[in-house]
């Protein structure tokens, strides 16, 4: 069946309106229905997904204050840009991310694929490195060059371990 409005596309949206006991049917394509305001496009990007998720979430205020101690990213910043700041964000934002992961990937959100041969054993060391590198960036930013040099040495030392 073709869309009643544009007569070009296939009608995929079928609406039955009841007013004063009378049924009125209309058959529209997605574009016309959207132009009509009858249909809201399914959220396709992560920002939309997140926004709608946040709206549905009751603890909006708590979420707004959530931020990662490692990279400084707040959950609201993530919401705006759709990109996480560091691996630790997956821990810090575990709860609010859970709904998003389920929507994108389905109910089963436990990794069952490939595992790196040396994976997992080094997580603690990696967190420490992440922290040292953040301190280094901060020292360079505030022109504390002595501190920066010291941190650089510590990172080098650490990488050898």
């Amino acid at each position: 069946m073709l869309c009643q409005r544009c007569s070009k596309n296939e009608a995929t949206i079928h609406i039955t309106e009841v007013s004063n006991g009378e049924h009125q049917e209309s058959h529209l394509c997605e574009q016309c229905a959207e132009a009509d305001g009858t249909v809201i496009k399914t959220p396709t990007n992560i920002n939309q997904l997140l926004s709608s998720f946040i709206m549905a979430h009751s603890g909006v205020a708590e979420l707004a204050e959530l931020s990662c101690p490692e990279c400084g990213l707040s959950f609201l910043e993530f919401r705006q840009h759709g990109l996480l700041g560091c691996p630790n964000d997956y821990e810090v934002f575990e709860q609010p991310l859970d709904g998003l992961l389920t929507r994108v990937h389905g109910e089963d959100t436990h990794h069952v694929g490939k595992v790196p041969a040396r994976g997992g054993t080094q997580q603690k060391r990696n967190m420490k490195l992440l922290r040292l590198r953040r301190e280094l960036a901060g020292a360079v930013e505030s022109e504390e060059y002595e501190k920066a040099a010291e941190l650089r040495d510590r990172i080098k030392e650490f990488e050898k371990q």
Partner: protein
Amino acid sequence: MKLAELAKRSGSWLQGEGPLAGIVISSRVRLARNLAGYPFLSRCDHQQKLEIQEFLRQQTSELATAEPLEYINIDEAEALDQQLLVERHLISRQHAEANGARGMAYSASEKISIMINEEDHLRLQALQPGLRLDEAWQEVDALDDLFEAKMDYAFSSRLGYLTACPTNVGTGIRVSVMLHLPGLKMSGQMEKVIRSARDMHLAVRGLHGEGTQAAGDFYQVSNQRTLGASEQQIIDEFKNGVVPRIVDYEQKTRDKLLTEHAHFVDDKAFRALGTLQNARTISSEESLELLSHLRMGVTLDRVSGLKLDTLNELFLRTQAAHLQQIENRTMSAEERGVARAKYIRQELNPN
């Protein structure tokens, strides 16, 4: 223009030799990986980006890959070189247009390529002609093993490979096929295909991926789900379910068009051939559309004497950066139109 040589040849993934080559142009598998101990790129400062780039460049140069990898510093590359790599599907448009320390490497056959500092620290890609997802997965899996032996990836046992965008987390895998679907387009059924693909949690995009138009009736279909299923499951579902269904649908539509409206199909193909053999200037949009009609005529044996390879190559080399690389100068849109028409005439007219 360092890459002018590349522009003069066709990517081996474009040679019409693969399974179902009439409809499936290429198969691609890419993996997203990040180094442990560094923030993701949006939170990296300039120095950290440089460190990551230099480290991964160094590691790449030492990998024992079957084919050696050629490294290109994308930040320092000329715009035309960047664009050429996009046109050849070796890097993403985002990677070409971004700022800051970033790079790429590719093998001479172009079946393997990597991006450094795109959305993730490292993205590995394997490209194969036709429907060859298993081969592409094996290639990229082996490449991943080589990298992984030299570095720690950001990984959690619960969520798998940790990526900058949570839509890639888990396997970090993106499986995609490039399909040529003129039949479904002509018969107005593409909308339906796109809708049902979305219902199966697949993304349908244009020629150059995210945010691009479906020029020349080419569509890229890829998985959305990366977590909760293994790489092989994701590939099998794609290989055995989704792709054959769309291919079958396109084939049936072409057959139907041929049975019921052969004159229509012939008219499209031969008009396209006539215009392409005679045009003195032609835009990329028009050439894509006409080449698409002609390609359908060739795969249905309605137009003889033309090889699929020739057409595939024309699709590739009539793009803006290719034309300019081949001519070795920057050209205005008008100059490109003339050069494009001339090149097409040469390829499509005997003698």
